[in-house]
């Protein structure tokens, strides 16, 4: 799993919560991974596999993780399963920073798949339908650097606040821009939580 997930992308929106729920359902229904949260002081998450390849697997994520982090972790786990890293009786652990990780290469391969899926270049249709549409190039460029990423997120959170402060939101909802900004905030929040996702933007 990710080595760069941070706890910095709070507070999360209800929309991100919904995205997390949908991805959790996707993991359970399509990937065979049941998810639960627990207080994990020693690790961020781990995926436990049973005796046979088709047995349901169990993913435990740290209760302290944000919705944005979990969105990334669920995609990361789906990538591990797609790459068949989930061999029977083998646990995949997302360690805390600073913990030696002999599986770093495994995680890097999964991350590469997540980046492709996140930016709309790969992944099955059902999964891609759950995710925000690929963003316009200027926004992707802004997500490359920590500073611009942070500023963009602040700006989008400000816009969201203004949106909820406005009375007739139904009028704004009819404008396509509202949805675009909402999706931009989803994407920015997740990339802030898992900055390695921005690497894909660098290459485009």
């Amino acid at each position, binding site marked *: 799993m990710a080595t760069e997930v941070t706890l910095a992308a709070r507070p999360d929106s209800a929309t991100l919560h919904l995205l997390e729920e949908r991805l959790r359902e996707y993991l359970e229904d399509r990937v065979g991974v049941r998810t639960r949260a627990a207080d994990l002081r020693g*690790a961020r998450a781990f995926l436990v596999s049973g005796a046979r390849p088709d047995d349901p697997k169990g993913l*435990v994520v740290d209760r302290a993780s944000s919705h944005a982090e979990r969105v990334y972790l669920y995609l990361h786990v789906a990538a591990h399963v797609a790459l068949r890293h989930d061999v029977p009786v083998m*646990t995949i652990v997302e360690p805390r920073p600073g*913990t030696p990780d002999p599986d770093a290469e495994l995680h890097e391969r999964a991350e590469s798949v997540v980046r492709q899926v996140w930016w709309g270049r790969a992944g099955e249709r059902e999964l891609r339908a759950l995710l925000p549409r690929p963003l316009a190039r200027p926004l992707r460029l802004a997500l490359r650097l920590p500073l611009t990423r942070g500023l963009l997120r602040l700006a989008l959170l400000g816009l969201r606040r203004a949106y909820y402060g406005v009375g007739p939101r139904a009028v704004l909802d009819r404008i396509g821009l509202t949805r675009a900004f909402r999706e931009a905030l989803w994407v920015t929040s997740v990339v802030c939580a898992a900055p390695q996702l921005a690497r894909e933007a660098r290459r485009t």
Partner: protein
Amino acid sequence: MRIRDPERVSAAIRSLGRGRSLDALVDRLYDLTEGAVSLDRATLHRIARGRTRVARAIDTPEDCVRLYFALMILGCDQDLDIATVVEEGRAVLAGFIGEPLATLIFADLERTLPKLGDVRTLREYLEEGLRVWLPK
């Protein structure tokens, strides 16, 4: 299931139970495994005293693995240190299913343990391990 090393398994169960009564152990094992490991009291008493080589209700390697996870969770509940939980857990597993198969199961714990960090996270790992090994 035939126990290969009754004395060692007996010592491991007593160590993981840390003075808890055998009746309480039976009840806790039943709860943890959702009834999938339904050791009767008489059998557990005989196993814990090293008096039998045959464990009724532990019929398959899967049952052994479930018992292994459940007993290690018990060890965590009793505030044993990680090293003891791991050592005694391995003794239980190897005592039931023999070293070759136990090594396969145990290799995952050995690989995973350094990344888990603390006993609380180890307990969550054991709980999840037990869950995925429960009958579907």
